């Protein structure tokens, strides 16, 4: 399991694992671009507005004027992005 929490984000984030959960906690109200992919699991993001989904991935922009690109991928496992 990858469990990361950021108090501040000033650059892009890429996080991948061959298998396992990814849990990312980001600063409250952060605007960002997201791609999240898992072949089997659940994807949970702070807001679904602006997020497009395929059978196994989600992508889009959360908030306005995004300041970071966040790419998360796991071959199997849940992906959870939440605000602090």
């Amino acid at each position, binding site marked *: *399991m990858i469990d990361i929490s950021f108090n501040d984000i000033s650059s892009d984030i890429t996080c991948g694992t061959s*298998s*396992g*959960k990814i849990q990312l906690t980001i600063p409250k109200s952060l605007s960002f671009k997201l791609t999240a992919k*898992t*072949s*089997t*699991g*659940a*994807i*949970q*993001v702070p807001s*679904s507005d602006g*997020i497009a*989904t395929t*059978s*196994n*991935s*989600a992508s889009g922009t959360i908030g306005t004027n995004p300041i970071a690109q966040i790419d998360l991928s*796991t071959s*199997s*496992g*849940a992906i959870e992005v939440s605000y602090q």
Partner: protein
Amino acid sequence: MKKHNRKQKSTFLVIAFSFLFMSCTGGTEIIDYEGKSLYDVRQDFNTNIVNIQQNKSPLSIPQDSNFVIVDYPSFVGELSAYISKDPGDGSKYPAIISVNMLSNETMKEYGGANIIVMFPGLRGGNQNPGNYESLYGEVDDIISAAEYLSNLDYVDSHKIYLGGHSTGGTLTLLVTEMTDIFRASFSIAPMDKFQNYDHVPKPIVFDTTNQKEYDLRSPILWLDDIRTPTFVFTGTKDGNYKNFKSLKSTSDNSYISFLAIKNGNHNNVLNSVAKLIAQKIAADDEATANITFYEHQINSNLHDSK
């Protein structure tokens, strides 16, 4: 396939699912299982049923003409079940065992998606042999049902799923902790510990002086045994939500995904989740399970169903 290499097939069927339950009293002793799996601990244990409970009502003729009644083998003898009829076209279809998960409304989704559905009766119910064991022997029964399904000509043995709601959700977790026969499992509003069944009307059936009896019926203790994709859903306004949070915080097992459904209660999440599960099974066409749920999809489904 791991674990349940049993010489004897078992069967079960429980449609009425009167899952009698229980007022619980004990369950405070802590036993060190030394890293053993649920499967291993059960191999050295026999439940002690001290309160014999059965349901003698026969299984009724299925109202849906797409279903038939079958008997399938189990450790306690032949158990009855409802199962979708063979479409008769020579094809093999995905199948799901429902433990209190599907309603008449959601059944249409599964029929429309060409998913074979089995409603197994379990020991002690519907004139089946054996007695109610309150989530112990019933675990074996469901595995027996899956074995039966896997041998049917019209079922794809690599695409057998399991889904349950409430006590059926608890049973779904316990079964999935015992076997990898299922391609994926869906547990809706399960309980974490057997001790937390504190509201159930009927007397408990096993020896309440033995802590192990509780532990072997408590999925939270064995989550790390799960080796197939498993999805746990619970509404945030469900009384079982505290159990959901407890389960989620206990294990980092990557095979398990937890989805909280905003503003869902114990009952209103059922049909929306069940319909979504049918869609995911129908689209699960890779060599291995390929199922992704999105939290907002479930929340949207719940909203649309109101």
